[in-house]
């Protein structure tokens, strides 16, 4: 590894933890970010000459603190914040020991506060905790850089102006806030796993692996800092299990490959083993929830040596449990598909029919119908369904797959 990439790796890994500690100390998101930014620029200059220091995190933390104090001194605000500077002045600089307190939980919950718009929550989480630069986050969500910069700036401003507290929520708020945090992490993962906003004109691929990696990494931090939480473990397991298949979701032409056609020898067994182990940990806590159920379904797929070995009856039963907890349309559609596979396509089709009225704009519904109609040789109806699905489709790889199936229906 060259020094430049070593430096970049270090920055990425330490960014969240240092920023979280800085915000704790200075009570100001913007000041902390600006100070860290200064420190990073400084580090880039010095480390390329002197090499990466023995304790890069401590080096960055010290540099950032100095920069923050400088900034505070330069601004008139100093008169209103004598206590902050006093406290820092009396602190012995040499007690900057190896352990920077890990305040990342506070940062995670603050980024995912309900008073922030969801897209702001996602952007802020990736930028502050994931250490992704503004251009990197912009690219991940296919928005122009100035738009993303503005989104982040507005979010920081809202945190300050509206008085969003920098803390782990108290026990009475924790369950709902934790759900929100998990939802953001999963959203980031899904954005990476199944891109829904590709520009049809570009040849964007199906997945953005960096986002999957970041989501898993964030969930690992969450699990480490808030252990014994079944749904956090469940989500981590779910993402690892999905991720184990990521390499096989696309073929050489950039076209979607479905579960039953994927090359299982290329599924990442390490991730599968880890996912299953973590799921077991979660289940042992006897605190069931939707992420755990979804992870269990994913595990059943992962454990089947071939597509025909898949335990569809178990999967159908699990979707039944999931539907009881979260009766959303996507769950009902998946449940219908599982029942079709466990018994016969007609059963699945009947279940899907019940959703017909509400599901007209729902992409997965038409994909599922098309598939089951195809399996029962109802070619015209299948073609209609494939066409509707293509209309609603949001990415190139999936569209290519659907188009291929449509052609098969039209030209037997």
């Amino acid at each position, binding site marked *: 590894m060259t020094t430049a990439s070593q430096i970049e790796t270090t920055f990425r890994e330490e960014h969240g933890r240092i920023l979280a500690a800085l915000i704790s100390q200075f009570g100001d998101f913007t000041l902390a970010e600006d100070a860290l930014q200064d420190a990073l620029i400084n580090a880039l200059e010095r480390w390329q000459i002197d090499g990466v220091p023995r304790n890069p995190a401590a080096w960055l933390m010290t540099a950032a603190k100095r920069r923050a104090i400088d900034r505070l001194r330069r601004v008139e605000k100093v008169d*209103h914040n004598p206590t902050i500077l006093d406290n820092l002045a009396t602190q012995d600089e040499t007690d900057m020991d190896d352990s920077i307190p890990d305040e990342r939980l506070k940062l995670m919950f603050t980024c995912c*506060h309900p*008073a922030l718009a969801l897209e702001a929550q996602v952007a802020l989480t990736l930028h502050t905790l994931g250490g992704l630069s503004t251009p990197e986050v912009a690219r991940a969500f296919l928005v122009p850089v100035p738009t993303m910069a503005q989104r982040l700036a507005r979010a920081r401003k809202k945190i*300050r*102006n*509206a*008085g*969003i*507290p920098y803390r782990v*929520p108290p026990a009475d*708020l924790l369950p709902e806030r934790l759900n929100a945090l998990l939802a953001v992490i999963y959203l980031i993962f899904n954005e990476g796993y199944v891109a829904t906003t590709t520009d049809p004109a570009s040849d964007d691929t199906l997945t953005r692996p960096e986002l999957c990696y970041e989501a898993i990494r964030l969930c690992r931090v969450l699990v480490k800092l808030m252990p014994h939480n079944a749904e956090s473990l469940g989500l981590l397991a779910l993402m690892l299990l999905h991720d184990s298949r990521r390499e096989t979701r696309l073929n050489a032409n950039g076209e979607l490959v479905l579960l039953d056609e994927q090359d299982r020898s290329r599924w990442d067994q390490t991730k599968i083993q880890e996912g299953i182990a973590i799921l077991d940990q979660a289940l042992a806590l006897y605190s069931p929830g939707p992420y755990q159920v979804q992870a269990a379904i994913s595990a059943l797929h992962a454990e089947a040596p071939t597509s025909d070995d898949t335990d569809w009856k178990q999967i159908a039963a699990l979707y039944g449990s999931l539907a009881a907890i979260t009766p959303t349309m996507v769950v009902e559609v998946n449940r219908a598909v599982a029942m079709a596979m466990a018994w016969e396509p007609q059963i699945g089709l009947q279940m899907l029919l019940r959703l017909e009225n509400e599901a007209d704009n729902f992409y997965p519904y038409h994909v599922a119908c098309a598939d089951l109609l195809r399996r029962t040789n109802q070619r015209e109806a299948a073609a209609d369904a494939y066409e509707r699905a293509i209309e609603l489709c949001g990415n190139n790889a999936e569209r290519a797959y659907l188009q291929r199936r449509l052609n098969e229906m039209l030209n037997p």
Partner: protein
Amino acid sequence: MKYLLLMYANESAGPQTEEERQAAGPTWHALLQETKKAGVLIDSNGVLPTADATTVRIRDGQSLITDGPFAETHEQLGGYFVLDCQDLDEAIQWAEKIPTAQYGSIEIRPLWSAGA
């Protein structure tokens, strides 16, 4: 931090008759007492309906006075609280206790201060 909590509801939602208003009374009273006891209450009151509102604008030096609210909206202002809270989470918790939240909306605005 000081917050203005604005209570909005469609004027045909919530208590309509005198009996319904009387029935809702104790809940409002209890909430007021709670905010006083917690030391957060700065001010609170209801406002009379949009039928009693008057809007004033000055354009091109002309004073334009009209009957009614500044705009026709689906929900209308019904009252307010001014609270001094620790942070937004506390303001949210108080907002959740306001009866209007059940059938209308509570908008929380931080009051302007020198630091903002």
